[in-house]
Structure formats: structure tokens, C-alpha cells
């Protein structure tokens, strides 16, 4: 599954995801009539306007054993909030079988190496709130007694040459929030700028995330500030196609 905004603005992330899965021996299909998971409408409270889109999604994907997307926010929506569509066995099947790419690689494929990939740089890893608190892909700072783990980091660490820099307030929201980025534009940009400042304070020039929506927002803030960062999706680095 390729999210709508990746389809439109960052097709290279969809391409990297497909190529990576194929390198790993997965037979991956791309249902051509897919469009969107319905999140833009659902998150706005427009549940009735999300229904048709969600049901189209279900029709496109109901028969697959795994539905994989390079997007924590979409997968969180499909797995945990797919309530605009009618609650049918197909709907439940899709919700139960959808995976964020990072989860799929860790928990299903259990990938140990990416021999075709090399990235000799220090990176800042940003994991989205959807992935952390919605999908449980990483321990959250709000629960300080939980043992540390991070699925995206564990994958990145397997890439030759890479090092992951720690930064302050590591899992504070980046400020995208979907429609929030437009309706509360000033706060959204302030949050994005603060995040860039904290990451930049480590000296990194590369910012990586398993979620392109956060990166789209941060990239927009960075360009306006004329900051010098490169933004890459996890799939691109693991696929060895980081430009």
C-alpha cells in the first residue's frame, strides 16, 4: 500500500519500499485502484465522508495475507481507527493484517541484514507518534520504567556505516498532525522548528523517519529556514537507494 501523499509527492519512497520487499523475496502486489486510507477526512471528524474511501480500501486489500505500508500514521488508522467503514469480516481482516514497514521487517520477515545498503553518516531518527504510541514500535518516554526497544532503530543499526545520534526530547511530536498543520499553522511550524533545532544541535545533516508525513512537514520547515538537512525515509536507506 502506498499512501496518497507518497503517491503524489514522494513516489521514490514507494519505489524504495517495493524494491526492498522484492529484494527480501516478498511477492508484492500493488492494487492499482488504491487511493487513500481515509485519514484526512476521519481525523477531521468527517467520519461519514471517510466511509466510501475506507470501504474502497477494504475492497482493494481484503484478500491479501499481509498489507504493508511505509507509513505509521496510515497503518495506525487502518489497524486501530477504521470505524467509518461498516464493521464487516473484511474490514476486520484488513485491520488485522495491515503492517507498517518497520514492523513487517522486524516481526514478520525478521530481517537480520541489508547487505546491499550502506550509509556512512550520522543520522537523527524521528519516529512518528502514530508509530510509537499507536503501533508500539518503540518504547515511549512517558513510561520510563518500560525496557527500551525500537523497531526502526534496530533496522537502521544493521546498515553498514550508519550511526544514530541521540537528541533532546526524542519523542515529542513534530507538529504535523494532519489537518493541524494547516488549521494551527503557527504552532505546527513552531513544533517543527523546535524539533529541527534539537536534531541539528547534534551536528547531523540527515534526518530519517519511517513516516513520510512527519518528514514532509519538517522538510517544509527546514526549507523555509534555509536549514541544510537531507530527509530520507527508512525504506530508502534500507533499500540502499538513499539518493
Amino acid at each position, binding site marked *: 500500500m502506498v499512501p*496518497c501523499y*507518497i*503517491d*503524489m*509527492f*514522494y*513516489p521514490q519512497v514507494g*519505489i524504495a519500499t517495493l524494491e526492498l520487499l522484492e529484494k527480501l523475496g*516478498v*511477492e508484492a*502486489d*500493488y*492494487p*492499482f*485502484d488504491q487511493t487513500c486510507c481515509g485519514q*484526512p*477526512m476521519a*481525523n*477531521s*471528524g468527517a467520519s461519514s*465522508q*471517510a466511509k466510501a*474511501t475506507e*470501504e474502497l480500501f*477494504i*475492497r*482493494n486489500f*481484503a484478500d*491479501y495475507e*499481509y498489507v504493508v505500508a511505509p507509513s505509521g500514521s496510515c497503518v495506525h488508522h487502518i489497524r486501530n481507527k477504521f470505524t467509518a467503514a461498516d464493521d464487516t469480516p473484511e474490514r476486520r481482516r484488513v485491520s488485522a493484517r495491515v503492517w507498517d514497514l518497520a514492523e*513487517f521487517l522486524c516481526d*514478520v*520477515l525478521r530481517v537480520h541484514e541489508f547487505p546491499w545498503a550502506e550509509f556512512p553518516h550520522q543520522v537523527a531518527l524521528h519516529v512518528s*507518534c502514530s508509530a510509537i*504510541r499507536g503501533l508500539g514500535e518503540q518504547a515511549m*518516554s512517558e513510561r*520510563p*520504567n518500560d525496557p527500551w526497544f525500537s523497531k526502526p532503530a534496530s533496522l537502521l543499526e544493521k546498515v553498514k556505516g550508519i550511526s544514530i545520534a541521540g537528541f533532546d526530547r526524542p519523542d515529542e*511530536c513534530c507538529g504535523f*498532525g*494532519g*489537518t*493541524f*498543520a*494547516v*488549521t*494551527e*499553522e*503557527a*504552532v*505546527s*511550524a*513552531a*513544533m*517543527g522548528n523546535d524539533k529541527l533545532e534539537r536534531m541539528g544541535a547534534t551536528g547531523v545533516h540527515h534526518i530519517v523517519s519511517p513516516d513520510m508525513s512527519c518528514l*514532509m512537514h519538517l*522538510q*517544509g*520547515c527546514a526549507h*523555509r529556514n534555509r536549514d541544510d538537512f537531507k530527509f530520507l525515509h527508512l525504506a530508502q536507506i534500507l533499500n540502499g537507494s538513499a539518493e
Partner: protein
Amino acid sequence: MKPIDHARNALAFLEDQTHEQAFDKLIWGLRVRRDAAAREVPEWEQLRTLASGIKEHTLSNLAHYLELFEQRATGNGVRVHWARDAHEHNQIVHDILRSRGAKHLVKSKSMLTEECQTRPFLERRGIQVTETDLGERIQQLDDQPPSHIVGPAFQKTTRDVAELFHRVYGSEPDRADPVYLAGVMREHTRPLILQADAGMTGANFAVAQTGAVVTVTNEGNADLSGNVPKLRICSVGIEKLIPGVAELAVFIRLLTRSATGERITQYTSHFAGPRDGGEMHIVLVDNGRTQRLADERFWPSLKCIRCGACMNTCPVYRRSGGLSYGSTYMGPIGIIMMPSFDIRRHSELPFASTINGSCTNVCPVHINIHEQIYQWREEMNAHGEFSTTKKAAMNLADKLLSHPEAYRAVTAAGEAAVKVLPHFAIYNRLNAWGRHRDIPGPAAETFHQWYARNRGRPNRPAHPAQETDTPTEGTDRGRA
């Protein structure tokens, strides 16, 4: 009546960089200290679960606990009153004061009395009201509501307070020293406490087993307000009930750690009966709580113990300031409580959130705050609170995204692609994606176009819901 425009208030706050940066730093500091306190308690998550379970049990038996509380309190010599709404509460309080000839009331912090607007009600009827909580008093002197439920004046810098005290008390305007300023306050307020006719407190908890009202303060101002005057009035929201002192221990262990990272406050006070020669009144207040209790989505907000952890962690709250919400309760808990008081006025608050979930995970009583924020958005839609432009944008998105061919046609044209994504944006009068942030550039081709060109468009169209043939080709098979 126009809804509160949180976005505009937030913009004004952000443009004042000094205040925003100081506020964000101060409030985040509370979150950091809260984390350290939680780390010290290995059973922290277990305590949260217990607290949530105790509240849920109590709310599922509220009539029983209210009656038990009333019975015990009455047996202790307390007079218990009941108020259906803010106005009844204020009238009861006023009647008590008037009938005793009380003209000057000192009070400790109570968000319930903020909710009921008790102070202006009494002042209009000739009763002098002095807040004794330092932060509340600061806001009272500046004619502003609280900006945070634990530290009402957190949105002010020390310099702001120095200027305010200079205006009001004639103290040194340039001495931005918290020790000095607290001394100024003590000097002016202590005589007022000693001369007061009556004292009023709120309640952090109401213990059914003992009929006691429990207050938690750093200053001891509830102990002063509640003990110095002979007449004591306690305002208690009905959701403050807990079964007994064994349960109280769980909450006292969680409350201050969640709020400021300390293990406890300096004064944890239990008022079960009047002082010798005095009288004590308790006013149990509904004011919309029973209505919320009946709502299966929103009743969990009644578990709230007013710790403020949710707003401390909220990145939106910290950057927009507590006053930007224009309401009694602010931040995440405010967003889920306020619409039930006035849905129109607060119809935009649920959108002052990125639904990131941090609040839910610091809440000591496991309120699913971010999920309720999401549900309030749906409620706003159902209630007809969307503007016509927003409705139009949603309808357009609906049509486009549920029709694959139309979607592909619109997105294939490079320039048009930019318009589709922030389509929901057109209802925002600031039309704002590009104000502080650059618009993403359109790609040369979409993924659909790339796939069609490089992999060939597959023959199989999307299944209608009724088809049941089992696919064998094109299914993702993982490596085991």
C-alpha cells in the same frame, strides 16, 4: 456566539517569543521531573491501573458513595448541600455567607469555583473575596483566569509579576526576584487571612468512608483558609468521591509526582469536621457531571484528579499558552471537558491537537484523552459545527478519494497534485500551509504512473465487497 479561536490566540502567543520560550521551558521541566519521579517507583504502572480502577468503580457506584459521604460528613457535624449547577452552587455559598453576616471570604484554589465563576458572583453581592494561593492571587490581581490548573500564573514571567506587584502594592518594579515577591504577597495577604469572616476550599478528593474533604497544597493556604475563620465552606465536584483512606493512599502517591515530580506536597490536609466552635459546610456540585457520566465515550474524563500532567506534556499547550484555550480547563483535559459545558463556544478546541497520545500516557488515571479528543471531532461534525467551507472540502475529498480513476486523473497532472493534499485546507481562512512552511513540490510522476510504466498495470480491478474468490497470485508471502 463565536467559537474560541485557539489558533489565533496561539499565534499571538508565539509571536511574543519571550513568553513562549519561557513557558515551554518551564512546563516541559515539569514533565521531565514527573518522569524522574515515576522512574523512582517500580510499581508506577500498577498504581496507575489501580487508580483508574478505583475511579471507575466509584463512578459506577456513585449514588452509593455520595450517600455514604453525606451520612459520614453529617455525622461529623458538617452541613451537606447539593447543587445541580453553577448558579445553585453560588447561591448556596452566598446564602451561607449572608446568613452569618460574613463580608470577607478567603479561599484556597478550586477549579470548581473557577468553573462556577463564584468569585465575581460573590463580589457583585458585596462580598470581598481574597484568593490565598499565590498563583491564583496573582491572576486575581491581574484580572485574568488561571493559565494552568496547578500553577495558575505559570504563563507570567517573574518580571511580569514584579511589574504587577509594583502596580498593585507599590513594590520595587525591577526586583524580579521570586523570594522577594513571595514576601510581598505574604505581607499583604496574611492580615487578610487573619481578619477573614469565612474560608473556602475546594477538594482534591472526598473520602466517603470518613466524610472528609482532602486538599493538597504546597503553601498550606487551604489549612489557613479552612482553619483560621470559624466558618468553613468546601466546594466539591461529585466526581471527587473515592471510597476510603486505603484508596486515598494510591492517589496521594500519584498526584504530586504526576504534577510536579515531587513525591508529595507540603500540606496534605483532611477536613472531616468543623473546628471547635466553628461550622463546616460542604456543597456537592453536579454542573454537567451527571450528563458526562451518561456518555459512554466521555465519562472517563470524570476520573481526572487535576494533576496537570497532560498539559505539561502537551506540545501544543506549551507553545500556545494556557490562556489561548479561553476556558476554565485548558490543554488536553480542557479540550475533552469544555465542549460538554458549551459545545459551540468550544467547537474548535478539539482541533487544537495533533492527537499524538502523549497526554494519555502520562495520565495517572488512564483517561484516554487523545481518543476522546478524536471523538469530540466527530461529535462536532454530528452537531453541525463545521463551517460550510470545511464541509465542502470534506465532501470534495470524499468524492475524489473514493473514485480511483478520478483520483488518478487529478493527481497525474503535476500542478494539480499540490492542490489535492491540503484540500482540507481551503476552509482555513488563513490558508496557511505556506505561511511558515514551504509547500511540498510536486513529483515528476506519481507512484501510480511509475508503476504503470515500469511494472504494467495489472488486469484485476478492485473486488466489489461481495466477491469471494480466493486469490493465489499477487498475495504477499513473507519469508517465514
